[in-house]
């Protein structure tokens, strides 16, 4: 890990009342890799995502993106700097068409935006449904639409919150291939995922959270054998 990290989180802490959701958590991501973020329910994964993307305000700690501090910036600024995210629960814009869902994101001129949006709809094979209201699409299609939408930001770093949840096998394989292609384009990806098979097959490096603390990190094989990780998931 000699290359400068694209994202560097140091000693990040976030509390909700008396609950410390993220506790002095540090991690660094090298560009062009796929990272996993795992941990039992309530271990602070989504809160960590929210802090990085400015949806939650951290209580302590520093977040640097490409060397620049982004903690304390409003969410839309973080997004425009190049950090895109998807949500655990689908959050498309239901009364906008699939195409419009993508158009609102781009800051290119209209023709350029339409061209890019059509290209991305093709990428997730929704080009036939461009004029359909997003709310009328199936669950899987909405998931793909959200995935295409985040790419309209041209993000250097993509945070995916449970991309595999509720997705059938065929769709899942397509999604995983798409994620790998994004990595090959040089983007960095951080995935929260519960499906261990997906994590082990996709990620090159995995962080493990438990009660808001990072308890382990390493390549998937090492994580699978780590005593602390097994304890966190199954108890002593």
């Amino acid at each position: 890990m000699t290359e400068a990290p694209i994202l560097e989180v140091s000693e990040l802490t976030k509390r909700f009342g008396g609950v410390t959701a993220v506790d002095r958590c540090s991690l660094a991501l090298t560009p062009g890799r796929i990272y996993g973020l795992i941990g039992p329910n309530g271990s602070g994964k989504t809160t960590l995502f929210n802090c990085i993307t400015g949806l939650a305000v951290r209580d302590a700690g520093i977040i640097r993106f490409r060397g620049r501090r982004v903690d304390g910036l409003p969410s839309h600024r973080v997004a425009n700097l190049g950090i895109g995210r998807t949500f655990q629960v689908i959050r498309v814009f239901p009364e906008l068409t699939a195409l419009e869902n993508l158009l609102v994101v781009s800051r290119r001129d209209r023709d350029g935006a339409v061209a890019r949006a059509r290209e991305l709809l093709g990428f997730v094979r929704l080009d036939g449904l461009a004029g359909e209201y997003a709310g009328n699409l199936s669950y899987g299609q909405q998931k793909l639409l959200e995935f295409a939408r985040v790419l309209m930001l041209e993000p250097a770093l993509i945070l995916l919150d449970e991309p595999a949840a509720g997705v059938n096998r065929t769709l899942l394989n397509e999604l995983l291939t798409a994620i790998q292609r994004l990595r090959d384009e040089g983007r960095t990806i951080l995935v929260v995922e519960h499906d261990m098979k997906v994590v082990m097959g996709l990620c090159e490096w995995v962080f493990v959270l438990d009660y808001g603390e990072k308890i382990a990190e390493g390549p998937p094989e090492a994580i699978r054998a780590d005593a602390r990780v097994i304890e966190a998931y199954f108890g002593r």
Partner: protein
Amino acid sequence: MRHVRWLLVGALATTVVLLALYPLIASGYGIRFMLQLFMWVALAQSWNLISGLTGYVSFGHVAFFGTGAYTTGILATTHGWHWLPAALAGGLVAVLLALAIGFPCLRLKGPYFAISMLGLNEVMRVLVSYFEGLTGGGLGLSLPTLYASVPIYYAMGLAAVVVTAVAYLVITSRFGLRLMTIREDEVAAEAMGIDTARHKLYAFLLSAFVPGVVGGLFARDQGYIEPIAVFPLAFTITMIVMVLFGGKGTVWGPVLGGVALFVLQELVWARFLYLHQFLFGAIIILVVLFMPRGILGVLQQRYRLPRYV
């Protein structure tokens, strides 16, 4: 879809020409009727710009109307301003009020914003009643006599046309789509790089100008204003019902809703004084229950109509 567009353009041009010629043959009642019709279309469309698009329901939009009315009233009585610049000044003051109130209030979500706007209207009404020296207080303000029904007819018509043209430009642009993302999912909009605070404020300012102007024209036309007459909650409710009925967030919904409900109200009101209030209540309930998108919203979904329809 091409023929739809031409049909629309043709129908619009014909309507505008006919309305422009109407004063030549109209009776005094006819002019007054149409003048009020234009006023309601303009008010409903203005409400649509903020609430129909962003989903931030303004329960006090009549505050801008009343502010415009009093601005015009004061300028006309104490400074002898001509009605037209006075009404435009009313619009400007309404925008300044929106700017001042928009910063804090647009941070509030959902029902809290609605209630804060309700409060704004009450505050404005009390303020106007309190500064008696300037406004005449509860006794009201009598404006210098003016015989200008026909010019005000044209001005009201123009206000309705302008705000509808603005709605058209906004709704068919990406700016308008971004306003809709705020209604659809504000958190996701932020995460997708949309500066929601700025967008909301712009929409709010846009939505305040025409009610201010229209309030000024109303004051000039009536010749007498008092706090309870230009800050009534019922006006805001009427705007809301018109937009919900016609189709929120669409270009033509507020026009359709404004025309349909105003005509209906006049027909019923002329015969049964209180029945129209009951009728409006019933329409709110029915629309919310069975047709939350309104007439145009339903048509758009069913026939996949483009947003300019």
